[in-house]
């Protein structure tokens, strides 16, 4: 299990955070996603052998937001 933090761009209310969380959790391999609207950050916990960071970023992009990995 790996944990990453992402910067999210394009959210305009707390419900956008909810959208991101649920779409991420629909992705196979993602255990939890916690997006904070105020901080514009997202914490994702996932299984490395089932999903890649690129896959996660792409999913957020599909939901309609931009995400960037915080190193």
């Amino acid at each position, binding site marked *: 299990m790996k944990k990453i933090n992402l910067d999210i761009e394009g959210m305009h*209310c707390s*419900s956008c955070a909810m959208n991101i969380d649920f779409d991420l959790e629909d992705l196979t391999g993602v255990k939890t996603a916690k997006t*904070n*609207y105020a901080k*514009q950050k997202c914490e994702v916990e996932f299984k490395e052998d089932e999903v890649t960071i690129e896959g996660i970023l792409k999913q957020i992009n599909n939901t309609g937001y931009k995400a960037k990995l915080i190193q």
Partner: protein
Amino acid sequence: MNLFVIFLTGLTIGGLTCLAVQGGLLASIIATREEELTKNRKWHAIYATVIFLITKLIAYTILGFLLGAFGGAINIGGKLQTLMQLFAGIYMVIVALNLLNIHPIFRYAIIQPPRFLTRLVRNQSKSKDIFAPAFLGAMTVFIPCGTTIAMEALAISSASGVNGALIMFSFILGTIPLFFGIGFLTSILGDTFKTKFFKLAAVLVIFLGITSINGALVAFGSPISLNSATKGFNNLFLQKQSGPKVNYITTQNPQITITSSGYYPNYIRVKKDQLVTITLVGRDAFSCASAFRIPSLGISVNLQSANDIQRVTFIPRKTGEIIFTCSMGMYSGIIDVL
């Protein structure tokens, strides 16, 4: 009540922010059931959307009624209500500033619904039940966006079940057209338009917020408000045109008719050091005008029904203008003490 402005807010920014989330849920519930249907797909989508929107409208109207009634129930002496109105106004301005992306700090004012509630809504959107769109519509009350929360604050500050219900009804009614135009808006108009639209619409929320703050200031009897500012302006520049107020009779027993849109007359003259008895006559007064206040004298009288008659008595001890107003400061008038 600025119901039309509230409707416009729903039509513009409210619709967009609601759509961002609820549109996705609605699409998801339509898609879930479509898999099982072989024909009548189009009708199914329309059915689901209409049912979803109708129950949403009903749920929010009920919520508005409860919030308004709650505001009325905790209304002790009227001061708390005015204070709440002030906060609602400030909150609306903050929501608008957040939408305009003025500073990241305003994001912290946006309440994030608890996870178990959002999960409940999400699960409902995956349900294949025929009533699922209806349940989902009603459940959207648990995932309000910033603008909706601002409207809910306004509903509380209206301190009346009926007014609260009207506020939420007008707002949600306004959001409905966008739900039908979702595909059109996102595909044709694109993101740049959306951003501009947001900014334009945020101005509406600021307007509502400032109206609310101003109303609270008037109701508090504050010497500084937009009304006093415009009055000062009128005194400075317009007095010569309007001329002296010669047509008003001075009486210690004036009658004020209260309708939903204010007080008639809104200017009365009385003499100093003599008992004044104002008769308040309600004529279908359903708005906040039915809650009559004289802030400087601490007088607070509510019509018990839309056509009720009440009396207010006091003895003015000094000459000058006394302001009377409704509980929200939206309608006001002057008692001139000679």
